[in-house]
């Protein structure tokens, strides 16, 4: 009697183990090598991290589910390169936790939208997309302009990003809130710190056209304007053979 039950239970356990074993191999074999990929991918020494304001904008992009309709991954196909710009490189999203490559283009790809339009265009487009593109079916985001950006916890956000491998310095973390304010307030003394810490090329502007306020719209436009511009690697290697 004991033997009978023992056999039954052993069968269930070994069956469980078999499923785990069989099912785990495929993922392991495909994912594990990607963690050694740094040996082969393009170098991008000029790659910079997101500023606190851009990171806040990215989080709004995530919060509003923009990735459901906009991809950020230009494929190695002629028509995509001609429509959107040089194809996306692995290195360009190395600080993207999580990546926002997307899976659907109800709207156009945004991987290289940074610098393509002016801040004013983005502002008007976010307030009502149909003012600029009458046929657009994008939701409007006028409320971002009405909402103050929360900055008090940005330091902790940077810290969490550092914990998963993004090279933020102690100084960046300590000044996160001030840098967010400074980047959208060019006349503010804090603005200097932003270019000092994140590079001369960093956009420091009143993105929403209101230097006296720091709104979610500032963060959103700051993020959109940096897309595809964290490094020049894609423009340099565009001529190199495909991966």
């Amino acid at each position, binding site marked *: 009697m004991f033997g009978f039950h023992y056999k039954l239970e052993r069968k269930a356990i070994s069956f469980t183990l078999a499923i785990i074993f069989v099912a785990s191999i495929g993922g392991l*074999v495909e994912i594990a090598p990607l963690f050694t990929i740094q040996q082969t991918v393009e170098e991008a020494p000029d790659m910079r991290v997101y500023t606190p304001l851009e990171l806040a904008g990215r989080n709004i992009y995530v919060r509003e589910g923009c990735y459901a309709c906009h991809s950020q991954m230009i494929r190695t196909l002629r028509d995509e390169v001609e429509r959107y710009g040089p194809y996306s490189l692995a290195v360009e999203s190395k600080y993207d936790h999580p990546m926002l490559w997307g899976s659907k283009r109800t709207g156009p790809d945004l991987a290289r939208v940074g610098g393509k339009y002016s801040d004013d265009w983005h502002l008007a487009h976010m307030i009502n997309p149909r003012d600029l593109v009458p046929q657009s079916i994008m939701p409007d985001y006028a409320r971002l302009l009405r909402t103050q950006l929360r900055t008090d916890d940005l330091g902790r956000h940077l810290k969490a990003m550092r914990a998963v491998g993004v090279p933020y310095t102690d100084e960046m973390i300590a000044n996160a809130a001030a840098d967010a304010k400074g980047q959208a307030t060019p006349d503010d003394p804090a603005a200097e710190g932003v270019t000092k810490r994140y590079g001369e090329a960093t956009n420091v502007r009143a993105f929403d056209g209101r230097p006296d306020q720091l709104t979610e719209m500032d963060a959103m436009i700051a993020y959109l304007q940096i897309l595809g511009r964290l490094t020049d690697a894609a423009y340099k290697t565009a001529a190199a053979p495909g991966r």
Partner: protein
Amino acid sequence: MGVTYDEVVWFSKTFGLFYLIGFSALVLVYVYWPSNKATFERAAAAILHDEDKPCR
């Protein structure tokens, strides 16, 4: 780092093939093992019995 990217990729590219063939063979042997036939036929028919009580 002990292993290089190329080594890992080589392993990935070859191992899957052998694993697939070996594993399929195992499954087929189990399924067509003559003494298992009765078990399978019984199992397939067993659910059709109306017996709304657990055995205790």
